């Protein structure tokens, strides 16, 4: 069993963020053996010349992904969690209309952004629904273009938040949101999106995120996919994993997608750390553990 290589209790498909973009008419660069496909040319210049096609599910590689989910569910559905990944509406909009256009419209033509988002969000929702119908257990929505590296908290609230809320409400299964990079200024809004978990990168430290997100949404992350998972040793992975969990991470994970060149022993170390960590029971013990995390963080 391939998943026995790493021990990860989940299987995630698909692997790239271009599935929707391809199906919506973007041209792709197909990448290489260690590089995922990415968007080469946008599909449209203005929102009114674009609509999600009625036969979305039959386009591009979507049928293949649906088949993959079926096979996973049939063979491993009892043993592991099947996690289907869909691309968020802002990232799809960036692919379809060009990120430069989309970001400029925020200042020059906000109506365009709202219009674009109200169209692309339908693709996210439709795909999530289809993935669940074909046997996925959970859906993780990935919307890296709505990162705080590109947007302020206010922009996120105005242009992205309502659609994230819409997506979360439409998914009738456990669902998580992932946004890359620096997301601290978005957290006060993300807290209220309705997602069950939020996955973030090490640019935001766990304590800060916990402080802002509270107990409204589970914290997922946030071991560095490059500095630790790819380039670090298994010992480094273990140490950071424990620190993460003490600081308030609920679901241990790398902060973003892993490089295909990540050493398997580092992934195993991550899984082992999650298995070995004793989750504190009751508020008193949780507090204690949290304090230990604080103290250890200080000593580092």
């Amino acid at each position, binding site marked *: 069993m391939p998943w026995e290589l790493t021990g990860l209790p989940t299987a995630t498909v698909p692997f790239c963020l271009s599935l929707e973009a391809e199906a919506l008419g973007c041209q792709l660069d197909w990448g290489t053996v260690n*590089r995922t496909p990415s968007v080469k040319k946008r599909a449209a210049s203005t929102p009114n010349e674009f609509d999600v096609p009625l036969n979305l599910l039959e386009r591009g590689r979507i049928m293949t992904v649906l088949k993959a989910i079926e096979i996973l569910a049939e063979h491993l559905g009892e043993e592991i969690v099947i996690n289907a990944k869909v691309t968020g509406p802002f990232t799809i909009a960036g692919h379809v209309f060009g990120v430069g256009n989309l970001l400029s419209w925020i*200042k020059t033509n906000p109506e365009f952004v709202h219009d674009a988002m109200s169209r692309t969000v339908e693709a996210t929702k439709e795909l999530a629904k289809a993935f669940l119908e074909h046997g996925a257990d959970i859906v993780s929505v990935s919307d890296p273009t709505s990162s705080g*590296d590109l947007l302020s908290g206010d922009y996120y609230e105005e242009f992205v938040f309502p659609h994230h809320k819409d997506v979360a409400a439409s998914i009738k299964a456990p669902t998580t949101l992932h946004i890359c990079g620096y997301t601290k200024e978005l957290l006060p809004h993300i807290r209220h999106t309705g997602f069950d978990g939020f996955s973030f990168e090490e640019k935001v430290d766990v304590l800060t995120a916990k402080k802002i997100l509270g107990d409204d949404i589970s914290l997922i992350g946030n071991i560095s996919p490059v500095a630790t998972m790819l380039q670090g040793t298994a010992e480094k992975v273990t140490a950071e994993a424990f620190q993460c969990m003490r600081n308030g991470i609920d679901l241990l994970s790398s902060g973003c997608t892993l490089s295909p060149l990540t050493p398997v022993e580092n992934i195993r170390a991550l899984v082992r750390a999650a298995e070995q960590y004793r989750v504190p029971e009751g508020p008193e013990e949780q*507090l204690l553990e949290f*304090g230990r995390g*604080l*103290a250890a963080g200080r*000593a*580092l």
Partner: protein
Amino acid sequence: MRAFTLGYEAGKRFLDDHEIFELIKKGQTEETPSPEEKPRLTLESLLPVDEPFRAIAQSVAGGDVEAAVDLVKMAVDDGRDGLIVATDGLLKGMDAISVLYDHKQAYVPEILLAAQALNAGLMECGDLNALESKGTVLIHTADGDLHDIGKKIVAAIVAANGYRVIDLGTSVDSARVLEAVRENSPVAVLGSSLMTSTRSAFLETADLLAREGIEVPLIIGGGAIDHAFAGQRENMRYARDPGELVGVLDAIVRERGK
């Protein structure tokens, strides 16, 4: 035992005492202040004092293409030198918004708009060949990397700081970089990579430049790059953000002038 008690106390306070939490946090991050801890700036304080340069700079910083064009036209019609209008007005505006961006008080939409206003304004300044440039730089993203936005921002900020920027585009291979270097004799080649899987292209480019005996440094940055990676080649340098990059470039130019 001490750590235990300390931890417990700190944890307890975390829940009810915001200030103490902030203090603990500050203690933990003393060596690397996070961007949000930089002091708040106002755009007004960053703009030139004298008119019409102040208004021109403000139009660029505010990303107002029409105002930038109109104000520059007016200034030139009034008999002002297009060069002066460009350097003391337009570029100062781009500079101001870059500083705000650096302090996380402006975001990518603002930078993109300001760059548009800057370019539109520059078109009205007449012949800018005499515009004193600190030197030419080439900019590109690593072979295989199609992330354009970060590169555009860096290009705009570097240009605002007095460099002539030639944008080679995204996913540029080492042979094309070499060709462009031969054509333009830049002071540096800038490269960005946001995907770990594409960054090794920079090693190839650095090696090719070295093999061809070209002593132009390759300065790289972006999410997939760090000091350790850039340290693998002697002719490769790392810049964390546009601000740091301009510092590195200025140092290179100073070094050359000696």
